[in-house]
């Protein structure tokens, strides 16, 4: 099976820091997969994403991307200066200019049709995230990379956004790599979860990870909630065809950091 991105023995250190942000991480993502990276603040989630995209210098290991891989990227906390006038329509034409029809279709697809003439800074948080997603979809990506895409959204907004991601995946067949804090919701939407804390603590199907001791040590009470929710969800979902192929017994993260 082809792999879109494969990282082997990836380590990243920031200048002046004692400990590496990421050490010896192996990662791969295949076409059509939804993979979510969870982990506490400072666990290197965003660094992993940026390393996979080639935005940071590696201290060990390497990243292989499928030649010509088209990536649609939604970075964390995109902030647009109020000093810069920018309509939604103009924003969609960065960095490549696109036609009106494609712009309208992309906005329609992400559930925010007709926003073209609005100023970006006048959008609500949810609308802005959908515009960012629309822009990411314009390159017809084989892989969507979303770094905490639901930050600042309320609970219904978060649920709706993940539902949209699943729809987009089903429609376009794009693989999705997400970084998230929203344990409860995101794990249900994922094929595979990676629990990160400087290194990979555990990874596998959502139910395998939510039962893993390393995951539960890391997220405590939240993890209990996920497990309960996941099992509840699982009990009532009879077409579920996940195979529990995870490695639930990674090193205990809470102890090693």
């Amino acid at each position: 099976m082809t792999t879109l991105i494969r990282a082997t023995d990836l380590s990243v250190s920031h200048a002046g820091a004692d400990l590496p942000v990421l050490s010896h991480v192996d990662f791969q993502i295949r076409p059509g997969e939804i993979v979510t990276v969870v982990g506490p603040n400072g666990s290197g989630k965003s660094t992993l994403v940026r390393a996979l995209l080639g935005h940071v210098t590696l201290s060990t290991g390497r990243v292989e991307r499928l030649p010509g891989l088209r990536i649609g990227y939604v970075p964390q906390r995109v902030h647009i200066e109020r000093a810069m006038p920018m309509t939604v329509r103009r924003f969609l034409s960065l960095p490549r200019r696109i036609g009106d029809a494609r712009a309208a279709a992309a906005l329609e697809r992400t559930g925010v049709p007709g926003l073209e003439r609005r100023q970006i800074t006048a959008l609500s948080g949810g609308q802005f995230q959908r515009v960012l997603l629309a822009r990411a979809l314009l390159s017809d990506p084989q892989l969507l990379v979303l770094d905490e895409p639901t930050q600042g959204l309320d609970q219904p907004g978060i649920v709706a956004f993940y539902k949209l991601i699943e729809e987009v995946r089903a429609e376009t067949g794009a693989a999705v790599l997400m970084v998230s804090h929203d344990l409860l919701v995101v794990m249900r939407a994922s094929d595979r979860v990676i629990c990160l804390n400087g290194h990979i603590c555990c990874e596998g199907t959502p139910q395998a990870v939510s039962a893993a001791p390393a995951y539960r040590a890391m997220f405590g009470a939240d993890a209990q909630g996920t497990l309960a929710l996941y099992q509840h969800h699982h009990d009532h979902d009879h077409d579920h065809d996940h195979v529990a192929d995870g490695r639930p017994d990674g090193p205990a993260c809470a102890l090693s950091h």
Partner: protein
Amino acid sequence: MLDDFLTRAVLAGLGLVAATGALGSFVVWRRMAYFGDSTAHAAILGVALSFVLSLPIYLGTWAVAVAMALIVAHLTGRGQSMDTVLGVLAHSALALGLVGVSFVPSLRVGLDAFLFGDILAVTRTDLAWIWAGAGAVLGLLVWRWQRLVTASVNEELAMAAGIDPARERLILSLALALVVAIAIRIVGALLISAMLIVPAAAARGFSATPEGMAGSATVIGAISVLGGLAASLWLDTPAGPSIVTISAIIYVVTLMICRR
């Protein structure tokens, strides 16, 4: 036609404005105002050097401004705070420039012309420098427009599209150095950043897109040049400061009309 000093002044001002409208918009979007100011102050050192080495002042000021941009890029890349680096460099260069000027007796009297500009004294040669410089800046900005705008919106988005934000930042710094060099004869070292910032700030209120803002800033700049020169002629006020004053008035008016 170019024999008339007023015609030359108008052409010099419009040449400058052709570059400052778009570049000034980037300065506002990227919060480079202090950077522009610092580069302009450092240009006084360039004036002194040009006189000592008998170079055209455009070359001397441009060289110093470029050196300034490169040193700032290097030091901030090493983790120094932008504010501090600019403060140290700008004022050191200004002080050094003023010390240098004291060794050039002919300049001691004429320094005002470089601090506040002397647009009414531009020659045909000045015009050639100004239009060549402005043309180069405008060409550079148009050529890299999409990349520059993307990098100004968000560096992560730019990197994901294969754009190197550090390179685009450097290009803007070099363009700024060029503008400082051509503006020093027109509005002087102290008012260069006003020509960059004030028209762009005035244009912000009624612009919907980056291109709209750059275009409006250029038009406002042109109106300021014409209005400032007219005021200077009728009221016998200094030309450079009059141009900036007109810009400032337009800014206040747009602020009152467009409440965004």
